[in-house]
C-alpha cells in the first residue's frame, strides 16, 4: 500500500517544511505524546539567532542523559518565524539546536536533511555549525552540504528530480555536542491565495523550547487547532497584519512502537489554514480539475470496448475501474506547476498510461462520464487521521466517489491495481472530501465490518497411521483480504510462491513439505482469487504408549498470510501507548476437517474458546462429527486503527489462541472386539 500514500503526502513535506521533525522520524521509524497528563510549562523567550552566549547558556542548562535517560538527543530550541503574503507566498526562517546525548543520537543527527521542491521552494542554509561540549564552535564546511533528490519520493515511485533535499553532514560530532541550523525558505503558494500549515510540537526527542510565529494578512484570517495537548497561544494585530504565536516548553518525547499509527496522529501539533470551510476547499479542489476531465476519440472508443458486454451499471463501472487501476501504472514524473494537487488532463494520463492517484482518479471520472455516470474526485487520508476542525489540503490520497443510479455512492480506488470489490472496504470510518463545484462538507464514511474483509482458510487433513499428516488447503478472501492475497501474488514471483507457503508451513510442523501450489491469476479481478496447495508432514503425532496426540493443524494459523503477522510480530509488547495501524477492519475464518487413523477413538480435544473482547472476537472450537474432527476458527478485528485498549483485547485473544494451539487432540486405540462379536 506504500504507493497509495501518494503524491498528496508530499504536501506535508513541501507545504509544511517545519515537519522536518516528522520527516526525520520517518527516516528511522515513526510515533505519540503522553501529554495529557502534563500541562505545558510556561516557556521562556528564546534567544536571538545570533546570540551565541545565550545559546551556549541554553546548551549548558539543557541537561544530559542523566536527566533524559530515554532520549538519544534533545531539541533545545526550535524557533520558526513565517511571513505569509496575500497571494499565499511565504518565507520561513527556522532556527534549531539539537543536543546529542548518545551514540545513537550522534548517528541519527550527524546528518540532517532539508527537503524542498525546486520549483516551489528556495532554501538558504544560513548557518550550520557544531557547538562542542567545550563551547567551541565549528562551522559545517561547504563541501559537507550537498544537494540531492529525495529517497522518500522514489519509494513512492515518484521519480521527479525536482523533489530534492539538502543534506548537511555535521563534522566531528561527539556525544554532548549540539548541532545548530538556521534555514530560510521562500515558498511559492501551492494553493493560490491560500496558506496551509501543520507544525509538530513533539518528536522522538524531548523538546525544551519551541516557538512558532505566523504573520499573515488580516484579510486572510487563520483558522487553527492544536491537537493532542495544549500550547500557549497569542494573537496580535498591527497594520493589517496578524501575528499568531505558539510557544511551548518541555515537551516529552514520543516513543517508537512497531506498527504504530502515524506520528502525525499522536504528536502534539498545530494545524492551520486560511480556508474558511471544507466546502470552500472542496470548490477550490474542483477548480483545479477544471478542464482536466476531458476525453477524445480514443478514450471514447476504449470506453465502448470496455463496456460493450456489460449488462449492468455495476459491471460497466467495474470494467472502467479495473482498466484504470491496472493499465495505468502508478508513477509520477513530469509533474508540472501545481501538480502536487493539480492532476494532469485525463487524455494525457490515458495516452501515457502512467500517473499518480489524482491523475488516475481524473481519468476514471472522465471514462465514467462517457457512460453517463457521475463521480467525484475525492480526497482521503490513509495512514493518518483527518483533523476535521480546520479545513486544510493535508490529504494523502485521491480516490473516486461514484454515484449510482439509485443515489448511493461507492468509493473506488483506481490506484489499487488489485482491488476487485465494488467499493473499497478500507474507507470505513474515514473522512473524505468530495471535490465539487458547489462545495461539499467533509464526510465521515460508515463503518465497514470485518465481515467484508475476511480471509478464508479451508483444509482437509488426514492423520496417517504412521504419525504423519497430509492436508489440502485453500485460501481465498473478500474485500481487503482479497486485495491482500492478490498483492502477495503480485509481489512474490511465481517461482517463489511455493516457497512462501513452505516457509509458513514450518509454523505448523518443521517437517512440512508443501506441494502443488496453485494460484489463480492475481490480476484477473473478475475471477475470485484462490490459492490451493497440498502438504505432508512426517512425525506429526506424538506416540505416548497407549495414546497418540497431536495439535490441531490449522489452529496454528500457519497458512493465514493475512493474520499470521499480527499474531507473530505485533503482539509482543505488554502495552502500547499509541494505536496499532492495521489499515482496515479484517478477519479470518479457518475451517478444517480432520480424518483420523482407523482404530482410534478421541478421548481428548482442546477446550473451546469463545471470546468477545472490545473490538475483537475469537471463536475456536474442535468437535467430533461423523468420526472426524471438525475445527473452526473465527477471528475478527473491527478497528482499522486499534487503540491501546483494543490492543489489550488483542493480547488476551492471542493468549487464548496460544493455549488452544498448544493443547492436544488425544487419541486412544480402540479395544479390539472379541472374536465372534456380540449378537
Amino acid at each position: 500500500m506504500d504507493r497509495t500514500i501518494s503524491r498528496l503526502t508530499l504536501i506535508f513535506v513541501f507545504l509544511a517544511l517545519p515537519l522536518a521533525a516528522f520527516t526525520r522520524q520517518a527516516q528511522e521509524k515513526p510515533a505519540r505524546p503522553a501529554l495529557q497528563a502534563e500541562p505545558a510549562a510556561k516557556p521562556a523567550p528564546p534567544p536571538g539567532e545570533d546570540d551565541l552566549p545565550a545559546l551556549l547558556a541554553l546548551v549548558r542548562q539543557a541537561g544530559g542523559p542523566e536527566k533524559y535517560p530515554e532520549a538519544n538527543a534533545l531539541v533545545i530550541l526550535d524557533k520558526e518565524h513565517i511571513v505569509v503574503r496575500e497571494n499565499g507566498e511565504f518565507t520561513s526562517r527556522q532556527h534549531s539546536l539539537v543536543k546529542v546525548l548518545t551514540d545513537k543520537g550522534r548517528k541519527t543527527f550527524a546528518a540532517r536533511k532539508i527537503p524542498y521542491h525546486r520549483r516551489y521552494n528556495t532554501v538558504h542554509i544560513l548557518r550550520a555549525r557544531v557547538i562542542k561540549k567545550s563551547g567551541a564552535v565549528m562551522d559545517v564546511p561547504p563541501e559537507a552540504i550537498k544537494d540531492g533528490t529525495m529517497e522518500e519520493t522514489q519509494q513512492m515511485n515518484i521519480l521527479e528530480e525536482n523533489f530534492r533535499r539538502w543534506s548537511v553532514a555535521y563534522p566531528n560530532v561527539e556525544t554532548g555536542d549540539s548541532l545548530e541550523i538556521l534555514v530560510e525558505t521562500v515558498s511559492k503558494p501551492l494553493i493560490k491565495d491560500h496558506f496551509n500549515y501543520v507544525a509538530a510540537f513533539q518528536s522522538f526527542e524531548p523538546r525544551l523550547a519551541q516557538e512558532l510565529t505566523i504573520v499573515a494578512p488580516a484579510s486572510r484570517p487563520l483558522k487553527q487547532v492544536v491537537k493532542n495537548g495544549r500550547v500557549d497561544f497569542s494573537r496580535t494585530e498591527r497594520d493589517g497584519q496578524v501575528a499568531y504565536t505558539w510557544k511551548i516548553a518541555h515537551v516529552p518525547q514520543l516513543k517508537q512502537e512497531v506498527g504504530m499509527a502515524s506520528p502525525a496522529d499522536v504528536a502534539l501539533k498545530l494545524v492551520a489554514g486560511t480556508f474558511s470551510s471544507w466546502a470552500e476547499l472542496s470548490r477550490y479542489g474542483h477548480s483545479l480539475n477544471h478542464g482536466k476531465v476531458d476525453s477524445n476519440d480514443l478514450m471514447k472508443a476504449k470506453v465502448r470496448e470496455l463496456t460493450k458486454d456489460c449488462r449492468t451499471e455495476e459491471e460497466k463501472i467495474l470494467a472502467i475501474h479495473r482498466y484504470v487501476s491496472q493499465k495505468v501504472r502508478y508513477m509520477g514524473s513530469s509533474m508540472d506547476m501545481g501538480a502536487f494537487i493539480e492532476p494532469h488532463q485525463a487524455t494525457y494520463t490515458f495516452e501515457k498510461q502512467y500517473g499518480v492517484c489524482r491523475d488516475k482518479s481524473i481519468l476514471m471520472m472522465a471514462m465514467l462520464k462517457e457512460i453517463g455516470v457521475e463521480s467525484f474526485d475525492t480526497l482521503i487520508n490513509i495512514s493518518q487521521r483527518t483533523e476535521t476542525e480546520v479545513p486544510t489540503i493535508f490529504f494523502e490520497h485521491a480516490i473516486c466517489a461514484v454515484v449510482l443510479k439509485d443515489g448511493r455512492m461507492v468509493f473506488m480506488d483506481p490506484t489499487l491495481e488489485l482491488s476487485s470489490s465494488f467499493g473499497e472496504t478500507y474507507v470505513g470510518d474515514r473522512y473524505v472530501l468530495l471535490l465539487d463545484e458547489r462545495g461539499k462538507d467533509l464526510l465521515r464514511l460508515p463503518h465497514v465490518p470485518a465481515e467484508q474483509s475476511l480471509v478464508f482458510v479451508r483444509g482437509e487433513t488426514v492423520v496417517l497411521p504412521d504419525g504423519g499428516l497430509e492436508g489440502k488447503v485453500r485460501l481465498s478472501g473478500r474485500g481487503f483480504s482479497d486485495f491482500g492475497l492478490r498483492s502477495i501474488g503480485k509481489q512474490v514471483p511465481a517461482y517463489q510462491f511455493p516457497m512462501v507457503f513452505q516457509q509458513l508451513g514450518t509454523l505448523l510442523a518443521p517437517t512440512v513439505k508443501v506441494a502443488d501450489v496453485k494460484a489463480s491469476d492475481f490480476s484477473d479481478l473478475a475471477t475470485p482469487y484462490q490459492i490451493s496447495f497440498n502438504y505432508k508432514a512426517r512425525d506429526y503425532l506424538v506416540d505416548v504408549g497407549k495414546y497418540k496426540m497431536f495439535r490441531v493443524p490449522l489452529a496454528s494459523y500457519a497458512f493465514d498470510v493475512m493474520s499470521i503477522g499480527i499474531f507473530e510480530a505485533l503482539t509482543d509488547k505488554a502495552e502500547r501507548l499509541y494505536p496499532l495501524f492495521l489499515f482496515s477492519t479484517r478477519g479470518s475464518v479457518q475451517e478444517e476437517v480432520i480424518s483420523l487413523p482407523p482404530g482410534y477413538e478421541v478421548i481428548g480435544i482442546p477446550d473451546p474458546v469463545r471470546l468477545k473482547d472490545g473490538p475483537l472476537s475469537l471463536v475456536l472450537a474442535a468437535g467430533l462429527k461423523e468420526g472426524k474432527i471438525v475445527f473452526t476458527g473465527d477471528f475478527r478485528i473491527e478497528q482499522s486503527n486499534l487503540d491501546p485498549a483494543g490492543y489489550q483485547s488483542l493480547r488476551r485473544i492471542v493468549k487464548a489462541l496460544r493455549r488452544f494451539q498448544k493443547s492436544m487432540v488425544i487419541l486412544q486405540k480402540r479395544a479390539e472386539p472379541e472374536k465372534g462379536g456380540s449378537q
Partner: protein
Amino acid sequence: MRNPVWRALILSLALASLLPAQESVENIVKSAPSRGKFPEATAAVVQSRQAFSLDRAGRKSEDYFLVLEVFNLTGREKFSDFRIPLDKNLEKVDVLLARTYKGNLTAVDVEKGAINDVTPPYLADADMYSNLIHRVLSFPAVDPGSCLAVRYRKESIDAPAQMDGIVRFQLEEPILSKELKVILPAEKSLKYKIIGLNSDFRVETSGPDKIYTLTASDQPQVKPEEYMPPLEEIGSRVVFSTYTDWNEACRGFLRSFDQAVRPTPEIAALAADLTKGAATPDEKVQRLFLFVAKDVRSVKLPFGEGGLEVHQAGVVLKNRYGDWKDKSVLLTALLQAAGLKAFPVLANSQAIPVVEDVPSLKQFDCVLVAVSQGNGLFFLNPFADKSQFGYMSGVDGTRGLLIKPDTAEFCEIRGLSGTESESRNEIVGQLDGRGDLKGKIVSEVTGIFDHWARQSLMDSTAKERRDFFVEALNKLQEDTESGNFKVSDLKDLRTPVKVSQEFLARRFGIFQGKIVLLNVPDLPYEFSGQGLVPRLAKRQYPLRLPDKAAVSLTFRVKIPSGHKLLYIPESFSFRKDYGSFDFSTAFDSGKSELTVKKSYTLTIRDILPGQYEEFKKMMDAFSLPRNTLILLERI
C-alpha cells in the same frame, strides 16, 4: 592505421551489430517469446548487448542495448523505470533510444520529463561522498506483453587508460540472447574469467583494435531462495580487466591511500594519548581500533562507488565520519603513528570469491586493516562498532588483497581466536502444582551471536532494554512476567555478551484432564539463534549460513510433587562431515528434575544442495512435536 577517422569507422562497424536500426529493434521485439514459455518469470531479456571500448587516448566507453519483455504487473513494476548508474564527475551518458513497444508494435517514446537524475536511495546517507546518480527512464504505456527498448552510450570524461568490469550473464529473469564485446587497442591484452558459461570469447583483430566477443543464449533465470549466496555469485558472469597485474590495478588507490595515511601532528598526538599506558602492542591496537570503530561515524558507501580517492587521515579525524577507505586510512595512520605496521586489505563483504587471475578492484566492496604481528597478520574491520573485537563478520575465511607500499598480495582473512560464533543458553526453572514455571535464562554468545546481541541491545535505552527482555519471554509463553535481568557491558567490545533473566511463566504447564503438557522451549532470544532454521524442503542453491556456528540450549526443570513423568523424548546424536547434532534427555527421579539438552555445531558455512535434505532432517529433529513435548501425569 592510427588515423582516428579510420579508427572511428572501424569502431562504428564493430558496433554496428550492437546498435540496431529501428527496423531491427522492431524485429527483435517481434521475436519476443510468449509468456507461456516462461511461466515463472515476470519478464525476459529478449536481447542484451554491451560493448566496452578503450581507445588509444585511454578513454573508455560503454554502449548498451536492451530489449526486455514484460510479462505481468510484477514485471511492469520492476522494470518500467530503468536506471542508468552514472558518476557525474567521471562519466557522461547519452540516451539514444528509450521506447515502449506495445503488444501491437505501437511505439511510445519516453518523454523528456520522464527522464530524471535521482540520488540512488542506498546512497541516502552517503551522498556527500559520491557523485553517483541514477538517470531514470520512466517508460510510458507499459502493459504485460510490452517490450522496453533502451540504448545508451556512456563515456568516461577523463582517460583512465585501463578498463575492467564484471558483466552478469544470468539474472532473475531469463536471457534469450546476450552479447558482450570488449574492444581494445591491439597492443593491450585482456585478462578475463568466464564463470558459469561454456563458451569463450571470440577474438578478432580489426584494424588497430582487438575485439573480444562473447555470446550466450537461453540463459535460465536464477530463482532466489532464502539464505542463498548472493545473485552476483550464483549467476554466470564474466570478470575482465586490462590491468597487467594487481600492483597496477591498485596503483591509483595505493597512491591516494599513501598520501592520505601520512600522520599529522593531531593524529600522532591522538595515537599517543589513546595508547598511553597500554601494556602491550595488542592493547594499543585495541584502543586505536575502538576509537575508529566507535567514535568515527561509518558512512555506508561500498568501496569503489565514490571513486578511489581517499580523504586525508587528518581530515577524517576532524570530520569524525568516513566511508570504508576513510575509516581504514585513519585507523592505519593511528596504528602507524603508534609504531605498528598496518596495511589496507580489500575484501568482499558478501564473501563472493575473488577471481585472483583477473586484477579488477571491482571485485571488492570493503576495506579492512591488517596489522602485522610477528609472522602473522590480524585483521580489523573499522565499521565493526557492534562486534567483538577481532570478529570478521561475513569475511572470515575469505581471501582479501593486502596492499603494502611495494606490492599487493592475497591473504586469508581470519578473525581473532575467541570470536568463533557460539551461542550457549540455559533455561532452568521450577514448576509448581498450578503449572507455573519460575526460573532463569542465561545466554552467553560470541561471534555472530554477539554481534546480533549488540545490534539488538547496544543502542537501547534502559526502558527499551527492559521492554526487550519482557517481549522476548513471549516466545517462552505469552504474558510471562520478567524479573531481574543483567546484561554485560555491551560497549566493551573486548568481552563477549552475556545476559541473564529471571522469569515467571504462568500456566506454562497445560492441564488436559490428568495430563500436564510441557513444551520444551526454543532458544531464548533472536540473537541467540532462533532464526537459524532451514525452512525450504529442498534447495537448488547452497544454504549460506551467517557463520560456522555452535549452538546449545539446556532446559532443566524441577517437577512438583504429586506428578509423575509420563513421557519424555528419546535422545539422539548424529555426526556428519559438516557438523554434529546432539539431543539428550534425562529424568533424575531423586531430584524430580528433567533435563533436555540440544546442541549443534556447524563446521562449514555453505550447506550444498546435495547435503541439504539430510541437514534439514537433523535440524528438524530438534523441533519435532515428539521432541518438544514432555507429559506429566497427576497422581
